């Protein structure tokens, strides 16, 4: 009976090992370039004018690309939640965050969906980066 239990446990652990990806993805590999600078912090403060159209979310791991990510912002009585295709901020979102009348003081970059080189979906990054505007 004991032998059977051990056998089942060994089989279970082998199955789990087979399902695990070869390389474990670490959320600290999700990075962001804002205003030409690499952001490696979950809470970052910048001047609004420094947010640019070519700012990028990327992963520091060969073979993985960002398929899309979500921008989520809150203001008094307003909420913005947009999924950006690709790894750059869409023009519409950028305009809403940086125009002179913008009332959003901060936004989150989250739900980063990743894809492997051969087109398979990879485990999503659970990292959330908060960008707070100083102006």
């Amino acid at each position, binding site marked *: 009976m004991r032998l059977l239990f051990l056998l089942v446990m060994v089989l279970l652990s082998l199955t789990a090992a087979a399902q695990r990806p070869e390389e474990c993805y670490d959320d600290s590999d999700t990075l962001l370039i804002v205003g030409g600078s690499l952001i490696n912090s979950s809470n970052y403060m910048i001047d609004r004018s420094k947010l640019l159209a070519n700012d990028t979310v990327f992963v520091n791991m060969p073979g993985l690309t960002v398929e899309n990510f979500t921008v989520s912002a*809150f203001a008094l*009585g307003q909420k913005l939640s947009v999924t950006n295709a690709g790894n750059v901020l869409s023009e519409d979102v950028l305009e809403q965050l940086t125009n*002179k009348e*913008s009332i*959003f003081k901060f936004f989150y970059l989250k739900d980063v969906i990743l894809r492997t080189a051969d087109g398979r979906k990879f485990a999503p990054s659970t990292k959330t980066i908060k960008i*707070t505007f*100083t*102006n």
Partner: protein
Amino acid sequence: MDGKILRIILLAIVLCPLFGNAQTNDYSMRRCWGYHKDSCRTSKNIYYRVVDNSRSALFVKGQTSRIKIPIYNGRDYRISFCHDQVLGEGIVMRLIDAENESTLYDNSEDGFASEFEFTVTQSRDIYVEIAVPGTSRYSEAQDNADLIFLRKDTEMGCIGILVEHMITPVKGF
């Protein structure tokens, strides 16, 4: 004899600070007084100034309470809260329009964030409402007769609400 008196005085000097520390757990002595000043982190943005409407209070698990604050057009606000660990996680902060009771912000939709920054485009009064999850004898009691005692160590703790503001900066040129 003089030596004995001296020893008693020295002993009193050594023990006085210890008794002083012991008093910090005494809720009858307004333990939460100034909690927001001592425990809540202010913004890293140097232009923010703490508003006098900031408050601290003693909360019991399951309790909901609100304060009214005026907010003014042309200012940015940062409202944050901090709390004793005994109250647990998942504390809800809502900003409610005092005129029509509509919810302007609910941190449960924002991952139970403990801070919220916003720009004001219209002066108004808002309520900052804090709701502590869980239950206690206080929240379950029908009237005062049902409430015999509350456990200080597991059912109640301090919450501080820190309100900061600054003039809304000009964006762009």
